């Protein structure tokens, strides 16, 4: 718990990740709490995606990392029930949108209609695309669908890696409005190159460079 009484949801101490002896994350320490909306910015290769993948339990690492007070490698499944993730590049899945809805509903025990409702709020009429393969949707439609799945879980932690990259300007506006009104108790981490675009949405900016945090500023 922080001084302000908020739960610390992501806590890293001395977090280091190396690939073939090249350190991509260097002795990183972070303490991110419920209610924070963090802009994770930095150049390509700064370590943003690596940090997100460590949080998702996809990478091994040195140091200490606790997500929701749990170990992301040993207790991945329990943690990921509370985490929503939107990738920068949508996976090229050949299954239909309907099958994806079934898949997410089965995994999260949330009715399909809930995801459909969120998608419609984001401007995506799923009804017309149910029989289409996910991979055949436009970039914007894929992104909206993935955002719907991530938000539909009502996660405590929402991780988004360049989530608006495939959205057109009007869809981007709707998306950010929607995020702005999203659960204030959740921790939101937005990885982005375009700080200007998300500045109105966040209350903390964390800039990474060569695997280190070089700026950590509360707005």
């Amino acid at each position, binding site marked *: 718990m922080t001084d302000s009484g908020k739960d610390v949801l992501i806590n890293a101490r001395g977090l280091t990740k190396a690939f073939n002896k090249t350190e991509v994350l260097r002795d990183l320490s972070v303490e991110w709490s419920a209610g924070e909306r963090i802009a994770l910015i930095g150049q390509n290769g700064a370590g943003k995606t690596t940090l997100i993948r460590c949080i998702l339990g996809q990478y*091994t690492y040195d140091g200490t990392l606790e997500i929701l007070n749990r170990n992301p490698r040993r207790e*991945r*499944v329990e943690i990921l029930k509370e985490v929503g993730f939107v990738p920068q590049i*949508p*996976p090229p899945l050949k299954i*239909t949108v309907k099958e994806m809805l079934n898949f997410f509903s089965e995994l999260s025990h949330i009715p399909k209609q809930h995801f459909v409702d969120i998608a419609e709020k984001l401007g995506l009429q799923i009804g017309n695309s149910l029989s289409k393969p996910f991979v055949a949707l436009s970039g914007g439609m894929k992104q909206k669908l993935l955002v719907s799945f991530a938000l539909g879980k009502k996660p405590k932690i929402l991780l988004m890696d360049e989530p608006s990259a495939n959205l057109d300007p009007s869809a981007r506006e709707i998306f950010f409005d929607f995020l702005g009104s999203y659960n204030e108790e959740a921790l939101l981490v937005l990885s982005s190159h375009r700080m200007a675009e998300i500045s109105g949405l966040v209350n903390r900016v964390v800039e990474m460079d060569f695997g280190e945090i070089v700026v950590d500023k509360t707005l």
Partner: protein
Amino acid sequence: MTKQGFLAILRLDLNQSLRTKGFWIYSLLFGGFVAYMFISGITESQIIGFVGLGRLLVTFMQVCMVIIPIYVLITVVRSIVGDKENNVMEYMLSLPVSFSSFYWGKFFAKFIVIYIPLLVAFFGAVIWGMIISLDVPWNLFWLYSSLLAAMVFCFLGIGMFISVYTRSQEFAVSSAFVIWLILVAFLDLLLMGMMLKLRINPDAVIGVGMLNPLQVFRVGVLVLFDPKLTTMGPAAYYILDTVSRGVFIAFAIIYPTLLGYLFAWLGNKRFKNRDVI
């Protein structure tokens, strides 16, 4: 591993596979081959004493021995490493699915997708044979169905192992091809024959032969026939002359299954303990 995650990935991977052209081409190839054999009158010809449906099933198995191992390897080795390369893994493993559920869900989905068309082709042959009043050699049918399942399981395990250990699809496919070549080289007609000619201890030859799942499969296909050196090759002949049929049938089903499981288990062990992307 959780049952829910396993079943979700199994269904997802099945749906994915059913939407690929490769699956339908593969299914039509084997179904079409059975149909072609009936049309071409193969059931009326004779091989090592077998005619009718038995003759057809033997030919089908010989074709399977040539195609299935390399097909399974080439298809499966791209599975895990392919998912890494095209960002499927990053997304799927951001969901509450354990690494083992993901791995074994994919494994068994691939088993179903590869084995079921073969079994359907087999059943189709038997049903059509019954319709045109051929005798159904049920002993061959059950033996061959089991041998095929064991062989698919074996090469699936090896394929998943390679897929976890390699970092690119190109390297995975090359590795699969090299492994297949080595196994083929250790069949009777090539190295085994040469080893016997060079008067290497027959027990050593048998040992090498029994370790090779392709060789085990080949001998397993012939196990119900009278062993003749000219038709079986030296190693198969020696093996069947040394070991009883019952023992060999059990071995031919259990050994490849265990070998496949061992490789799959080793693959999963590495998969869940390393970086998954």
